[in-house]
């Protein structure tokens, strides 16, 4: 089995983001960037399947500027075998466009499993996996919290849905998007980070794909969320309960 893991370079989840003063977006200069945490879980899952000999090859794909090579490298350091960067000059592409590019790469690579985060923590769209599955006509299991390979060329995937857990069985090839509970990603060891530097990353120009990358959505402005008005400190439990009852009226 071959896995294609799709990873996105985003602002590190520990960084407090700053909205640009011209409201055109979010400040990304001199800000720590990392692999989208949900994609990290996807890499980890693929590596675990490889360790169980259920996957033979892991290809790490990213779409972005040259800097996304770093993100691919960190996936290779975790245990990916080789990388593909689809290089663009644009910082952000829309999920529909990204889905079309992944489909095109998949047509060539012919993976059995495409695995990626359920959403990126920058645009919070939660669409790409579903779009890829639809365009490829692969079955999908989104928000996976458990994944098991059966002997009959199917995967049994437990999904985190509102109010509980749903289990589905999907035929390979398939698309899986990962949720938090699936696993805890490993830290790459120093020897593995060194080894990853030798691994191959193919760089493909976005222009070589016959895909219209023009945005369908126009971002008119990005602004700070409404400020919470400053609160007060209360002296004791009695006054807390009193405030919640009579002032906030939430009890």
């Amino acid at each position, binding site marked *: 089995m071959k896995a294609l893991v799709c990873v996105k370079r985003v602002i590190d*989840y*520990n960084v407090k*983001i700053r909205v640009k003063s011209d409201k055109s977006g*979010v400040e990304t200069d001199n800000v720590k960037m990392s692999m989208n945490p949900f994609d990290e879980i996807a890499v980890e899952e693929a590596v675990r399947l490889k360790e169980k000999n259920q996957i033979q090859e892991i290809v790490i794909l990213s779409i972005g500027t040259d800097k996304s090579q770093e993100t691919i490298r960190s996936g290779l350091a975790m245990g990916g075998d080789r990388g593909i960067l689809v290089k663009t000059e644009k910082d952000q592409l829309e*999920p*529909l466009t990204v*889905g079309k590019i992944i489909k095109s790469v998949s047509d060539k690579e012919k993976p059995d499993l495409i695995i990626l985060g359920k959403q990126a923590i*920058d*645009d*919070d769209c*939660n*669409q*790409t996996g*579903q*779009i890829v*599955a*639809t365009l490829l006509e692969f*079955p999908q299991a989104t*928000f996976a919290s458990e994944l098991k390979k059966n002997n009959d060329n199917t995967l049994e995937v437990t*999904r*985190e*849905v*509102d109010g*509980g*857990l*749903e*289990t*589905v*069985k*999907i*035929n390979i090839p*398939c698309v899986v998007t990962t949720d*938090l*509970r699936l696993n805890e990603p490993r830290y790459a060891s120093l020897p593995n980070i060194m080894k990853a530097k030798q691994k191959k990353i193919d760089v493909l120009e976005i222009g070589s794909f016959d895909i219209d990358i023009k945005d*369908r*959505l*126009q*971002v*008119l*402005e*990005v*602004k*700070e*969320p409404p400020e*919470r008005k*400053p*609160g*007060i*400190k*209360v002296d*004791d*439990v*009695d006054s*807390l*309960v009193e*405030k*919640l009852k009579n002032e*906030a009226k*939430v*009890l």
Partner: protein
Amino acid sequence: MKVLVIIEHDNETVKQSSFSTISAAKEISDSIEAIVLGQGIDSVINQLKKSDHLKKIYKIDNELFQNPLAENLSKAIHKFTEGSDYTHILSPSSTFGKNMSPKLSALMDVQQISDITKIISDDTFERPIYAGNAIAKVKSNDPIKIITVRPTCFEPCALNSSVDVESLKVDLDKNNLISFVSYDKSKSDRPELTSAKIVISGGRGMQNGENFRLLEGIADKLGAAMGASRAAVDAGFVPNDWQVGQTGKIVAPDLYIAVGISGAIQHIAGIKDSKFIACINKDEEAPIFNFSDYGLVGDLFELLPKLEEKL
């Protein structure tokens, strides 16, 4: 302008998220129709029929939709909308809508607008990005807008009407690449984290999993859901699915009570849309106080039993 709302239900009851989505539709147009796909859905239809604002309900009752598999749903809805004059297709941004709606958008070659929190005009919407740490105002240039709606941002519609229902047949082959195995409903008697009116969460200050019992008594009295900070989850105090924050669950209850939580950025991102935030923390310098409407400085092990008693 004509809006189609895709109804979320469990073959027995209409989910509140659907009624909220109908309210969102009303801000776009007066011409709103709904479609319900399921199996044995008479009781669902009977509830939905009462919805204000709906002009018509389409019902597709078929074993294909016994379980909400996105493959079958998206194909059927796509077929239904072909040749129609819908300008907007709305689903709730619950896991149901998140799973299904992007598939519909791919079939129609439309760039979906996810998780909108405000409607500015029929083509311009606000949606949170970076877990609500910024708000993007976006304008769609697609001829049809496919949208998921954050249910907590729109009041559910009133139920004083009687809407016409039309049953439709569906001509669709079952997708054999996926099959439903099981659904395990969470055993907790407490409400779901993401839809609860009150949420009480514990952080590293709880010191261990046992001590979360101190929160349980309060949660029981308030009918609250229980959550935790990432630090508490990472320390193994409580299961992963309790995690509230940027990489966990985003909540927006009427009241959020943070106990022994310092208020890391990634936690605040998950709670900042709460109507009121109260916190209990022994460190009066903790950032959580800057985000709380009511802060109580002190030892949670002394204060929690008192709080439970007062409620």
